[in-house]
């Protein structure tokens, strides 16, 4: 699995609401498509996304098969201290994609 692409500002002021953009390379096989022989291709998507800041939940999302391949999610977060954002995606097969991004708040 390739590394997710995340956009978090490097610096912010206390109390700022920042915008975070995330994108993961994933086929997001919907389970609706058929292969050349006409057999349904089984569903395999990222079904859960969670973002935490210094261990505190910020935002999460339950994803269904209607989300496009290479899922993009943009959301906001309010930051009151420096710390690290943790991002976790869960696959249908149970595997997880995890990454972190630091931010300096002054």
């Amino acid at each position, binding site marked *: 699995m390739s590394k997710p692409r995340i956009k978090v500002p490097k610096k912010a002021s206390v109390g700022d609401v920042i915008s975070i953009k995330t994108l993961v390379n994933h086929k997001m096989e919907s389970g609706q498509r058929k292969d050349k022989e006409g057999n349904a291709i089984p569903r395999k998507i990222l079904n859960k996304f969670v973002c935490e800041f210094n261990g*505190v939940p910020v*935002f*999460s999302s339950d994803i269904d098969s*209607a*989300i496009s391949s290479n899922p993009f999610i*943009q959301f906001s*977060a309010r930051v009151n201290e420096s710390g690290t954002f943790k991002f976790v995606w869960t696959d249908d097969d149970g595997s997880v994609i995890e990454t972190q991004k630091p931010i300096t708040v002054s």
Partner: protein
Amino acid sequence: MNPTRRQFLTGSAIIAAGGLTTLSLPAMASAEDVSKALADIIGDVETQSGKLTLRTPEIAENGNTVPVSVSVESDMTEDSYVESVIVVADGNPNPEVISFHFTPASGKAEASTRMRLAKTQNVTAVAKMSDGTVYIDTKNVKVTIGGCGG
């Protein structure tokens, strides 16, 4: 009694015809599926319009990746915040698209993503606030090329 040849042939013809219909018509979400999905989310609460804004393009040329964003007016404090926003598409094989769950640490109840739409249809977003009120917004999206594979 053994089935006669004629009975056998008619039987297999019916089965074959049935098989063909199921193959050529991919199951779309029925109106009941959608209203049931919405009822599960909303419960018995009266829905209101206003605070919630759902943004989608009027015409989506490619149904495989249709931008969608939601925003809800809220202070996002511990006492009053948006718990979740659920997006439903009534013309897709599975009506559920995505649920966003916010916390006071989100700062703003705004999120966007990209979704697949099988055909021209209504997309509905439902926002649940921490005080139990529910807001709803619906947009029609015209889809030129469906995004369901095939």
